[in-house]
């Protein structure tokens, strides 16, 4: 195993409620300080993969039943979220999920739960540096923030925990293109300045591959393709299915059928 691999999933199977199998042998590796993007259509199992890593399957009655997850060369599958977060893995949940009735600054303060009692002033400054909007809104209830502000808030909240590995689940979901650009710019900045390794789950494949070093594509609970981000961007199938740049141009019924056929092959 390479020494600079931070996280490795070896052929993991995830089952919900003892019967619903969602991941069927997922393997992937994340190198230290890289941004790795995980693409795939709805229901492919991206969120489940992240939750398998962060330990958040447990409250949903899900379990890694097969395979191993190793992080810093230790196996971590099925540990509790309390243990995993304390190893430096923080997941930013899909659909934002702020603490609505807490102020922006109180939300950020919850991010220090993994190192309770330690000073955090500097970290607040750091987060406000990345997201100046949050500083302006810091006394407001999070429930009244806009979508873009909330995305900044939940990312900032995760940063407060000093993560080594940050798992971002669809940060661009439902945001205006300009805001998405801003968020992605900050993701790159965090990766470079804080040396945070990032796994980025996205529907927005072109943006994600634009900033990632490496990428994986999931379908139906399996990895169907992987490669350096630059190579994936050039791949004709990726272009057609995820970047919306099908060679045929205008969509016709024939294209849709072709899409289905190709997708099965994928």
């Amino acid at each position, binding site marked *: 195993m390479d020494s600079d691999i931070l996280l490795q999933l070896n052929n993991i199977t995830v089952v919900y409620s003892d019967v619903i199998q969602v991941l069927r042998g997922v393997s992937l590796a994340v190198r230290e300080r890289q941004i790795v993007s995980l693409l795939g259509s709805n229901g492919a199992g991206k969120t489940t993969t992240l939750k398998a890593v962060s330990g958040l399957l447990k409250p949903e009655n899900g379990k890694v039943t097969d395979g191993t997850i190793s992080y810093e060369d230790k196996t971590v599958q099925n540990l509790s979220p309390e243990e995993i977060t304390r190893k430096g893995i923080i997941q930013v949940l899909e659909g934002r999920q702020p603490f609505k009735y*807490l102020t922006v600054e109180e939300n950020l303060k*919850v991010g220090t739960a993994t190192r309770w009692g330690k000073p955090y002033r500097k970290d607040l400054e750091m987060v406000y540096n990345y997201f100046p909007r949050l500083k302006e809104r810091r006394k407001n209830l999070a429930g009244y923030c806009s979508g873009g502000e*909330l995305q900044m808030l939940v990312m900032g909240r995760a940063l407060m925990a000093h993560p080594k590995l940050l798992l971002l689940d669809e940060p661009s979901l439902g945001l205006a293109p300009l805001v998405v650009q801003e968020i992605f710019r900050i993701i790159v900045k965090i990766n470079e300045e804080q040396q945070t390794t990032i796994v980025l789950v996205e529907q927005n494949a072109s943006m994600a591959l634009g900033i990632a070093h490496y990428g994986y594509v999931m379908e139906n609970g399996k990895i169907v393709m992987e490669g350096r981000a630059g190579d994936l961007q050039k791949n004709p199938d990726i272009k057609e299915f995820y970047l919306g740049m099908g060679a045929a141009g205008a969509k016709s019924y024939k294209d849709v059928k072709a899409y289905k056929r190709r997708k099965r092959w994928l």
Partner: protein
Amino acid sequence: MDFFLQLLVNGICIGFLYGISAMGFVMIFKSSSVVNFAHGELLAAGAFLFLALVTWANLPVPAAFLLTLAGTFILGFVIERLFLRPLIGEPLIEVVMLTIGLASILKGAMLLIWGGNLHNYPDFLPEGLGLHFGAVSIPPVYTTSILISILFLLLFGLFFKFSSQGIYMRSVADNQTAALSLGVHVKKVFALSWAIAALVAGMSGIVLGIINGINVHELSAIGLKVFPVVILGGLDSIGGAIIGGLIIGLLETFTGGYISTSLRDVIPYIALVVILLIRPYGLFGLVEIERV
């Protein structure tokens, strides 16, 4: 008019106590969605522990008071650890059954030790604490209880607003998954809410014991009044619990004073039914922020 003022003061005082003990109930409900049917027994446990420390152990009152608070805090903690934690994630009905069982066990244990008779604390409140405004006089126990209530409210307000643990507790009540994702020890938060709830229940138990005397049956029946109080205030609102407590307290004393004492004990439940019919989410239930 004097009679009115007297009832007003009594009502506010009783209401504060109802409100504060309902606050404990709401805390448990908010953090872990557990409906605690053993609340009245926690109230009684505090009253009897204080009795034991004051009469059997002959401790000075302030020491006994603080020790009782510590004892009920630990009791709540232990209850969560032993009984509630194994049931995390189980259906609500099982948890409710458990708290009902817990209520019988606690009640049984207290009956065994102290029997079903009425006990009284020795008189220890200095007369000087009583207040007199013309014909209206406020007995020392009422001034004390209002002072203690306000002190507790202040302390808890500060705790929830500024301490890390308080903020973690609110975060769990707000969005449990998000709190887990940030490494908040959700189980510790559950335990802490039980501990604090038992502590405030114990405190109310002591003061109610000073006012009415101490009797297992009566105190556990008072515990049931948290239901009208929290239904009135909104199950998920701590501020609502206090206001709900005040309303029920006033309603009770005024009914008792002007209409009949036998109606007094029923009126909270009449209010409960009326509120359920017209505003099932309570008068002060949280306004759901729907923006996100």
